[in-house]
């Protein structure tokens, strides 16, 4: 008979460990599913939150870069001086002369009310106002015309109107296939264009726009622009920003407010980050709870399976074998949960991002990190129960 030295070394091959470790979860499917669920929820939250925040951020950044971050707006007001609260009449021309400005446009207030037709009671304008603009406005704002056209040098002298996106919706103007009019002041004015949204100048969405030339001829338009929009060369934002007040209103430069509309959108992207961090924290808590759940289930499994453990020990399994069996079982539980979680997270991201017309972006760190994290959590959660299992004396375990 083989002596102790000649007996084959104890072997538990990786495939055997996995098979033995998987036998428990396989035999108790409901419990497996429930205990893996905690991990699933945690990982799904992490993957989903990271996926959604990346997708939405990329959508926002796409929008910002499409609109350009080099647009500045110049408005009167904000100072405490003795000025008249208006930009000078020359403000647009002065701004356009700054060498770093590539294009400049302005809008003027028009003292007239606009209605869908003459039968609307006076004063019920629905918060739609009338403004005048120069012919470069759409170009400067990088806006788009949904239907019809914007003014050009040829049409500018004539009284025609272009409606902003919100105004068009309010008036029920969907296209210009048939002649369409709005009632401005005391006259019907033909609508020649419908604009898309201006995310960088949302006020204009609620406006009916006349050409500046026609407005001053046929209506009571201000001489001073209310807002000047300027596009500047990339990389010259700050210096242009510094010189704009002095150039546009040399007499009261301190009363001029210069702002950068894209800042608001970027702030929105940053705000999303804060929310993302919060959700990631929640996901991490869910993972922790999931890990504790697995440890819990494993402790119960060890108590329940004392007989099996004693039997294995009696039949020749070493303490290390038992330890490995239960750690493997915990890892299998948690990896199952992790795979489920990644799948749920990816699916949630895909569904939501698609519904928002965002590009679907699943950060690989989130998916792989989720799985690696699951393995680590399983190993840690399984360690204590496994050590308890290995320490059971074979006779004690068999008595149970």
């Amino acid at each position, binding site marked *: 008979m083989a002596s102790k030295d000649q007996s*084959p070394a104890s072997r538990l091959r990786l495939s055997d460990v996995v098979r033995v470790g998987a036998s428990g979860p396989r035999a108790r499917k409901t419990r497996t599913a429930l205990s893996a669920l905690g991990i699933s929820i945690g990982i799904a939250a992490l993957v989903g939150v990271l996926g959604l925040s990346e997708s939405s951020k990329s959508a926002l950044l796409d929008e910002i870069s499409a609109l350009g971050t080099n647009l500045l707006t110049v408005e009167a007001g904000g100072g405490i001086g003795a000025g008249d609260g208006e930009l000078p009449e020359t403000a647009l021309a002065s701004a356009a002369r700054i060498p770093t400005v590539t294009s400049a446009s302005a809008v003027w207030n028009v003292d007239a009310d606009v209605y869908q037709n003459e039968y609307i009671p006076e004063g019920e304008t629905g918060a739609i106002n009338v403004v005048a603009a120069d012919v470069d406005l759409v170009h400067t704002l990088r806006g788009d015309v949904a239907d019809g056209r914007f003014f050009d040098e040829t049409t500018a002298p004539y009284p025609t109107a272009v409606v902003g996106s919100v105004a068009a919706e309010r008036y029920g103007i969907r296209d210009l296939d048939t002649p369409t009019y709005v009632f401005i002041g005391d006259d019907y004015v033909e609508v020649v264009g419908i604009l898309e949204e201006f995310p960088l100048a949302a006020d204009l969405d609620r406006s009916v726009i006349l050409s500046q030339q026609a407005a001053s001829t046929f209506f009571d338009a201000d001489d001073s622009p209310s807002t000047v929009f300027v596009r500047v060369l990339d990389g010259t934002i700050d210096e242009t920003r510094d010189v704009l007040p002095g150039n546009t209103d040399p007499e009261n430069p301190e009363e001029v407010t210069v702002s950068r509309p894209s800042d608001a959108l970027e702030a929105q992207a940053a705000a999303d980050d804060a929310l993302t961090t919060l959700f990631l924290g929640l996901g991490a808590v869910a993972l922790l709870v999931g890990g504790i759940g697995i440890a819990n289930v494993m402790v119960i499994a060890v108590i329940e399976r004392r007989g099996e453990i004693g039997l294995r*020990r*009696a*039949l*020749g*399994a*070493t*303490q290390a074998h038992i330890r490995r069996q239960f750690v493997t079982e915990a890892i299998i539980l948690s990896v199952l949960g992790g795979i489920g979680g990644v799948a749920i997270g990816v699916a949630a991201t895909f569904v939501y991002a698609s519904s928002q017309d965002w590009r679907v972006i699943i950060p690989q760190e989130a998916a792989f990190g989720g799985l690696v994290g699951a393995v680590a959590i399983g190993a840690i959660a399984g360690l204590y129960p496994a050590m308890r299992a290995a320490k059971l004396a*074979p006779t004690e375990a068999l008595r149970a």
Partner: protein
Amino acid sequence: MNATAATTAARAVQATKVYGSGDNAVHALAGVDVAFGRGEFTCIMGPSGSGKSTLMHCMAGLDSLTSGQVFVGDLEVSSLDEQGLTNLRRDRMGFIFQAFNLVPTLSAEENIVLPLRLAGRSRDDDWFGRVVDTVGLTERLDHRPSELSGGQQQRVAVARALASQPEMIFADEPTGNLDSSTGTEILTFMRHAVDVFDQTIVMVTHDPYAAAYAHRVVFLSDGMIVDEMRDPDGDRVLDRMKQFGK
């Protein structure tokens, strides 16, 4: 193979096992000297608390002695460390338990070859086939324990003990959970294994009629060997057991 044992498979010398200490000390084994013959079916009998199971556990390397020695062949079991005991059980012992003790998540076949897998040994297909055939399990190898009757489960356990061709098989009340006809069947298999396969079996039981299948019965009382009987029959064993009550 026959009533006179030519060699000794295992023996205990002044085996003592004490639980607790001081006034509370309980001598489960109080200096037991016993030897089990190779190729013999030996039965250990005695009233509850006589130390039968403790003796068997210490012989089998499942438990350790407080003092004294246990030998399996020439190997002194009482000197082995945990790893040594594990190797001893794995390579040289087979077990049959009262509660069958099959792994519920493994099929009958997987249960039978579990000791071989744990030892990293490949199975001998001829031997496996013969064992499975003998215990009549060929048709049920794919079943889980929960899908088998008690008798079938214990047959799996017997096959498991035989599969690794161990030096000794220890059986702890193997028929305790079975009705008498299935119990008879299991005992017949065990006796068959001794007579035909030349196995050595040590069995602990309460049941005088189970003891009748052994070549030799050893009586244990209060942690000591008090008597033994060769070629027992049920009634004689029962009569001897009745004396413990007095």
